[in-house]
């Protein structure tokens, strides 16, 4: 069940990136898809385990490697999101809109 829920979250994110016209929503959808991927790793690592990877013996604790990896993936995701929002801010200052259709219509005509 959980696999399907995480998969649905991933697909929701991808759908949002493709279907939404508002560029802030696109950035948020990217973040949703990224979080779903992180859940994939974490859920897989915790199957059959009873405790967090800091307590108990190696038999009962969750696989620590995915958790360590995902810490890095979260940081990378935050960097991308921050950069995307900074770009969106600059785009908004330039074009006065957040609609990707308007931005793309204007952008390539005004190249300096």
């Amino acid at each position, binding site marked *: 069940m959980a696999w399907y829920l995480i998969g649905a979250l991933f697909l929701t994110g991808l759908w949002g990136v493709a279907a939404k016209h508002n560029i802030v929503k696109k950035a948020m959808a990217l973040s949703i*898809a990224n979080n779903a991927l992180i859940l*994939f790793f974490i859920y897989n690592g915790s199957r059959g385990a009873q405790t967090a990877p800091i307590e108990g013996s190696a038999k009962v604790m969750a696989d620590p490697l995915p958790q360590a990896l995902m810490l890095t993936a979260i940081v*990378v995701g935050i*960097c991308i999101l921050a950069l995307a929002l900074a*770009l969106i801010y600059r785009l908004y200052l330039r074009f006065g809109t957040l609609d990707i259709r308007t*931005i793309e219509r204007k*952008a390539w005509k005004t190249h300096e």
Partner: protein
Amino acid sequence: MSEGLVPWLIIVPLICGGAAQCGKVWKRFDRHACVLSTALLTGIAAVLLPARAAIFSGAVLRYHLGSWTEPVGITLILDGAAWVSAALIFIITFLVAVFALGERRYGAAFFFFLMIMTAGMMGVSLTGDLFTMFVCFEIVAIAAYALIAFDGTAAGLAASFKYLILSSVGIFFFLFGIFLLYRDIGSLSIAAVSAALGSPGAAAVPSTHLALVSLCAGIGVRTAFIPFHTWLPEAHAYAPHPVSALLSGVVIKISLFAMLRLLLQFGGQYLFGLLLWIGALTALSAVISALAQSDAKRLLAFSSISQMGYILAAFAAGESVSLVAAFSHAINHALFKSLLFLTVGIAVQATGERNLYRMRPLGRDYPIISAAFFIGALSICGMPPLNGYASKALIGTAMKGSPAYPLLWITSFATVASFIKLSRIYLPGAISARARTKPGVLTTVSVIALSALCLCAGIFGGPIAGMLQRLLQPAVPFAVPALFRVSALLMFTPIAVLGTAGYFLIATPAARSLAARYESFMPNVRTVLVLFFAGLACFVAAGRW
């Protein structure tokens, strides 16, 4: 040569980035910081040169970060292929940084991102595990987004955003592929996964097949072959000129090398049939798009896509010479395409115009730069004895008898036609008052160095191919091809003749109006994503054959 030097290939560019950042803190020393960070970059050569003897004798240098061994730790592996990529990264980045110093328009922040990108690329080529490769790909990407939008122009910002959306979706699938491999095999080190997959490769089990194609699609976005190429024309055309040179020169090559490595390690030979046709189609359709462009930098960007397809097709032909042909054309393309982007950048800067029909010919104003431009243009056309000729001859041997070869042959004379079209910007014309500002000394030096490298890589094309063979696949016997035989030299004549004829064909009014209509077609972000998913589906279906 001790293994301890290997991590310095990544640490040195990071130190350079730190040095550049000092100029951001102390504004007075902005220029000094830029010069310092470029000078420090030569430290990479100080690591690569001592390693040369060991690498050439077939040694593989491994360094375990923090002494943690696999599967927990991160291992850096310096083998022949990694050494070649590191040398390529160093040469192009250093010359582009020198060019940017000469331009005097780019401050400390620019050099900071440039150095971070270099560190990321080094990481991609040195890493021994998939997750570190993912992180390094993202480091390269973050620096690239910032650099593309660096000038803050409307087109630059929009191009950067488009690239961000597409390549983030691509890297999600890369991460998904890593997840599948970790779930099935329980290791992330490339060598361990390769050993676990064994001789049947990734094709044996559906989930590993899905993992491999996800990895390929993720890297495919960075490498820019059809249908993942849609971000490249905008991103490379509207970026600042040194950034375009760097992106077209090394960034797409490094991801291509990473993809070739994964395909060979994970038994991806069953995908070669698909990749051959994707490569040939990419080469042909992108060069047709290049012919239609009137924007000088967009023309170069499409030509980059076309050459990437050329390299991919040569690799996927699967002959014993294929890997060497692909690598040597990738290296030569890095040299002449960065040269072309830099010289065209100078022309765009001097005339304040991007449309090549409206640009004033600059041949008389900038004789040295225009000579360098013509060396680059003749290289990409495959004129002997320049480097494009040498690697195209190798590709010809690799592709002999392949059904996709006619497409590549058409590509090579269409390339000639598109560069005849472009070369009007450096034809000798009237000297004008506006072009008084001569390019700086450093700018000229970097351009001359690149064109000298193009010439040398062509003249010594045979020995260089032999050297690549020894570094990449020492087990396979290989005779250094005699490049400058009369029959091989004559091969260039029909291409040149047909190319010139093709140029006159596209210069007719009917063709130009058709081109103008075709040129205004640009896929939007949604189409780009749909194309990405279609490409992914294609790769997934390839396993069923």
